[in-house]
């Protein structure tokens, strides 16, 4: 007979290693399924009505404009650090290639990935927390009872805004990062080249394809962060703790997927 003080084990928590592994795999498959539902649902509803436009502009300000100061600071220092590090390594050889190193690193790799991480950490977490809080407070259910589609009402504006904002932020980060490098070149005595040489070398090596690859990454990362943030927000369960779990999971999944898709895009870009 079960005593009154005995802990009742939840059926989902029973089982050994294999059972736990199986549950984890099922959970991941469920998240992928829900993510696909959100992604294709948003794609299917991509009609820019006046109302969607209004909501999308609001999100664009929150995701894009409000991130500009932070993006400026991060990109500037990344560009500056790149020059210092590369200049130190190249001291024995030639610092004449500093411009191309910083330019290519910023446009093809660091600009997109850092901005992707920044947006995932700043705007993606905010979206997951906002939608998560709306879910646990029954606001999503309230929308459903009003015959208002939560995907159309909440996901589509965020999806469009983030997918547009990230490539623009990447261009901005590229310019600021390269400028940060130029600032270091101009005043650091360890760098033996002029700003003119730095920029000349940069423009010789960077072509439009490099910039386009960076922008394509931005587009893909924007889709990833918006879909993941909305998916985790909408699948939130429980109260405040559930919102915290969803927010953390949204950021972690976004980071991991950004890195994976970064590899895939680079691989494809090299192939074609």
């Amino acid at each position: 007979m079960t005593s009154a003080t005995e802990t009742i084990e939840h059926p989902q928590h029973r089982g050994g290693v294999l059972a736990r592994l199986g549950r984890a795999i099922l959970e991941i498959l469920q998240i992928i399924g829900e993510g696909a539902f959100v992604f294709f649902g948003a794609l299917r509803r991509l009609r820019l009505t006046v109302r969607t436009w209004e909501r999308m502009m609001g999100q664009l300000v929150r995701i894009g404009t409000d991130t500009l100061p932070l993006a400026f600071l991060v990109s500037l220092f990344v560009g500056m650090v790149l020059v210092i590090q590369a200049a130190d390594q190249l001291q024995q050889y030639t610092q004449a290639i500093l411009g191309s190193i910083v330019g290519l690193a910023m446009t093809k790799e660091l600009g997109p990935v850092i901005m992707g991480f920044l947006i995932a950490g700043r705007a993606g977490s905010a979206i997951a927390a906002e939608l998560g809080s709306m879910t646990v407070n029954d606001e999503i259910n309230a929308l459903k009872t009003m015959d208002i589609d939560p995907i159309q009402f909440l996901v589509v504006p965020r999806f469009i805004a983030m997918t547009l904002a990230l490539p623009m932020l990447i261009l901005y980060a590229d310019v600021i990062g390269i400028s940060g490098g130029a600032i270091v070149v101009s005043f650091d005595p360890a760098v033996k080249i002029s700003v003119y040489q730095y920029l000349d070398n940069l423009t010789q090596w960077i072509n439009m394809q490099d910039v386009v690859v960076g922008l394509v990454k931005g587009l893909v990362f924007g889709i990833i962060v918006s879909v993941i943030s909305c998916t985790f927000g909408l699948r939130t369960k429980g109260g405040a703790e559930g919102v915290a779990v969803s927010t953390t999971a949204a950021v972690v999944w976004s980071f991991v997927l950004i890195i994976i898709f970064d590899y895939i895009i680079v691989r494809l870009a090299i192939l074609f």
Partner: protein
Amino acid sequence: MDSTRGVSIEVSGLRKSFNGTPVLRGVDLRVAAGEIMVIVGGSGEGKSVLLRHIAGLEAPDAGTIRLNGMELHEYLALPPAAKPFRLSMVFQGAALLNSLSVADNVSLRLKEHRTHSRPEIQRIVATCLEQVDLGGSEAKLPGELSGGMRKRVAIARALAVEPQVILYDEPTADLDPILTVQIGQLVKRIQDTRGATQVIVAHDLALAGEIGTHIAVLRDGRIVDYQPARELARSDNPYTQEFLRAANLKF
């Protein structure tokens, strides 16, 4: 359809389990058009789950729900403009959208479905807010309102679409006795003026007896007692009697 008349609700053999734990074990319930049905029961007995099934927010494991004879899933599948009647729900925590003003919350459905002109929407919002004694609070944000006011805004939002069915999940939870009475009076007034069918989940037996046409008692996932509100005290169901004794009430 006459917009002032409610619709009937028929729940048959409704079953629902969460993670293998049965919550509803075969609920049968019939609510006549225009009546106020209060579902009472202890905490965790499945009252809110039953209400969410009627609202179409949960999918049952088994059983059917019919609104005016129409299967609920058929009703939910219809586009908003084609639905023969409207259903509104007042959530326990009001579930107002915090980023929108009171007026925007109340008019959200009308604006999204573009069924009314802007002046018409303004008039409807003003009328609904007047009905819940919140006239003039259109510009306020939900964060500026007390719990009772938020509940009344949620009721105004439900009324704005002239629903034939209104579902309330614990409408007086966390409210003081005066506000509880006000909400009860409001529900009665809606019945008198609009004739909507109203289903209220509550554990407040005093409120249930005051405003309900019928009371259904839910226990262990089943309706164990069903009485006209005034006759609940004469029920020979031991759980109902225990519930009444605990509440120290006589109807």
